[in-house]
């Protein structure tokens, strides 16, 4: 056992000597040749910045692109700019959202930077002016003008017809340009021919009431349909009453001129 301990002690000593020897050799090598000139540093890579101000515009508005660069010999701004200086500004008016790209090229390679201009739709046009308030004159006419009703075989204006026609006159005074026709109608009783005359009398009586109330007779035409155009076809007084009327109808037919009276 004792012998093995001694061989380990010998190995450690030899290794220590070898280490010492090695250290002496290294010192000798550094000092010997002059050092070569250091290699040139590699060229710096080009860099750039590109900004847009503002970044959001409405259609038709402009934005300003602002850029700078380093280590670049060649700058290309797309779209639209082409070759540009190393730094600068440019106004753009894109019609739609656009990403601008500045490509910079130099000895150190190339690089690029981008800026986006967002184009928003213009605000909706101001709402059109509101339509004229309320319905058309013809609709108003249809809503407001009242029918005058008559007794059997009569064309006299009854109190209820006076009320209706006075209301018509009040409406027409507010709408002095309206031209219309009183259509005279009769119930089914009585002869075809007499009722043609009676319907004419009713239409003319209603017109006369309005003219007497200050409405221009030039704006009122009359026509009789006799008993040819009933609104109700039952055979009772309720129905007949509806059919004995002078009914205002929108528009007029041109009338032939009256001949000179004898």
């Amino acid at each position: 056992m004792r012998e093995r301990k001694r061989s380990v002690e010998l190995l450690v000593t030899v290794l220590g000597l070898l280490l010492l020897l090695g250290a002496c050799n290294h010192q000798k090598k550094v000092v010997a040749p002059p050092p070569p000139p250091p290699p040139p540093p590699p060229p710096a890579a080009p860099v750039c910045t590109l900004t847009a101000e503002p970044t959001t515009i409405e259609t038709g508005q402009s934005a300003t692109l602002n850029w700078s660069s380093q280590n670049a010999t060649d700058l290309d701004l797309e779209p639209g700019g082409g070759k540009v200086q190393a730094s600068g500004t440019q106004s753009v008016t894109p019609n739609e959202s656009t990403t601008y790209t500045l490509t910079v090229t130099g000895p150190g390679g190339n690089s690029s930077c981008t800026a986006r201009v967002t184009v928003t739709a213009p605000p909706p046009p101001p709402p059109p002016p509101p339509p004229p308030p309320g319905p058309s004159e013809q609709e108003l006419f249809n809503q407001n003008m009242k029918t005058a009703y008559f007794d059997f075989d009569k064309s006299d204006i009854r109190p209820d017809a006076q009320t209706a026609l006075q209301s018509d006159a009040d409406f027409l005074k507010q709408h002095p340009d309206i031209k219309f026709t009183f259509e005279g109608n009769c119930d089914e009783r009585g002869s075809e021919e007499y009722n043609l005359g009676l319907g004419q009398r009713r239409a003319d009586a209603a017109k006369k009431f309005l003219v007497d109330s200050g409405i221009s007779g030039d704006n009122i035409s009359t026509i009789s349909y006799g008993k040819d155009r009933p609104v109700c076809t039952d055979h009772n007084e309720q129905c007949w009453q509806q059919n004995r009327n002078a009914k205002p109808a929108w528009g007029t037919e041109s009338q032939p001129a009256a001949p000179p009276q004898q």
Partner: protein
Amino acid sequence: MKSPASAKAGSIRIPKLVLAALLGTALAIVAAPFLTCSRARAQQITVGTSSGAPRIKIAVTEFQPQSTDANLTSLTQEFNSVLWNDLDNAGIFDLVSRSFYPVKPPIAPADVVFDQWANPPVSTQMLAYGKTEILNQNLVVTAYLYDVKNPGNPSVLAKRYVATLDEISTRQVAHTFANEIVQTLGGGLPGIALTKIAFVSKRTGHDEIYVMDYDGFNQHPITSYGSLSLTPRWSPDNSKLAFTSYVSGNPEILIYSMLSHHLLPFPKYPGLNVTPAWSPDGKKIAFCSSLGGDPEIYVSNADGSGLQRLTFSPTVDISPVWNPKTGAEIAFVSDRSGSPQIYIMNSDGSNLRRLITGGGDASEPAWSPDAQFMAFEWRVSETGTYDAYLIDIASGQITQLTHDAGRNEHPTWSPDGRHLVFESTRGGSREVWMMLANGSNPKQLTTQGENWNPNWSN
């Protein structure tokens, strides 16, 4: 029975026929000592309410086709049907039912066995018979009228008609023979079988003017305006129709030529222009117009010149009709009393008087052709119905013609004064009917849609 030769020796009546060709010598027209018995009866038959005179008994056999040609058979059936209806419509005959006739009808004078017809069960006075054949691509109808109670001298009419082989011509031949019989036996008044009736029809949905044969056949439109066309009136010579149309937008009087089928000039007036009425000489037109402000009666020449106002009442004055005999008076409707009533004035507007003195609504007067009667429609009380009436103008006697059958309105006369055509709702829809002037024998003439305001040609 007389031979044709001896018949020739008698007095020959030359019929004025449009369509007919006279047979001439072979088929002599035997008028001979002309039927004194029948003539005497015929003179009792007058218009209007006095038509209760005994009717002439007549047997009308089926004319016999002389071949089996299908077209001839069909046209002969048409002929037989039309002849029967015409004589039935005439109002002066008592047609003996065919069920009593001998099995084999005569087709020529030699075939007539008088006792078979004069004695029971037929017991007729008159016998119409004949034959049909096709000759030279024409329909030839040989037609006889015999007085079988007068065997010594029986031949009243012997006619030969040549017509084209179609329905219309066949009907015209039957109408022509019927007219001959009516004129011969009916006191000389022309028959109405070839007359026309104008009326208003709504069958298309619009009010249009239509014309039909007097028996309702051949209804056809005169206007196709798609508007309101109303109150048609024949001119006295039937060459023109005056009526009102709203086609321009305003009711105006139009005059339509039935010859050229064009409108003739007539002035356009403002307002209502309706119910034109021809004077009996055809030279003037009376009408209702509101051109002066309210419906009044005016008269002008038929070309519109010489306009003159006849009424001056701030009410409805409408529906003028001329006295057809004299042209010196105009009847019309006015509500100047508060309800429509019938008035008569001289044709210059003077001498105004009220015709119907009862109450209610009286309107649409129609003067009989002899000017003795006025037909009109009347509702006697407000709860009553509208019916056709007659007034004897001289005596003022009023006769009601229609009863208890819907509304019966606008009666107007046939040219023979024996008939009235009118509008009636008795079947539900307003339709054109005709009847005898005493109110009997009503017959419906129209069925398609509503039809009204009939006017009989002259």
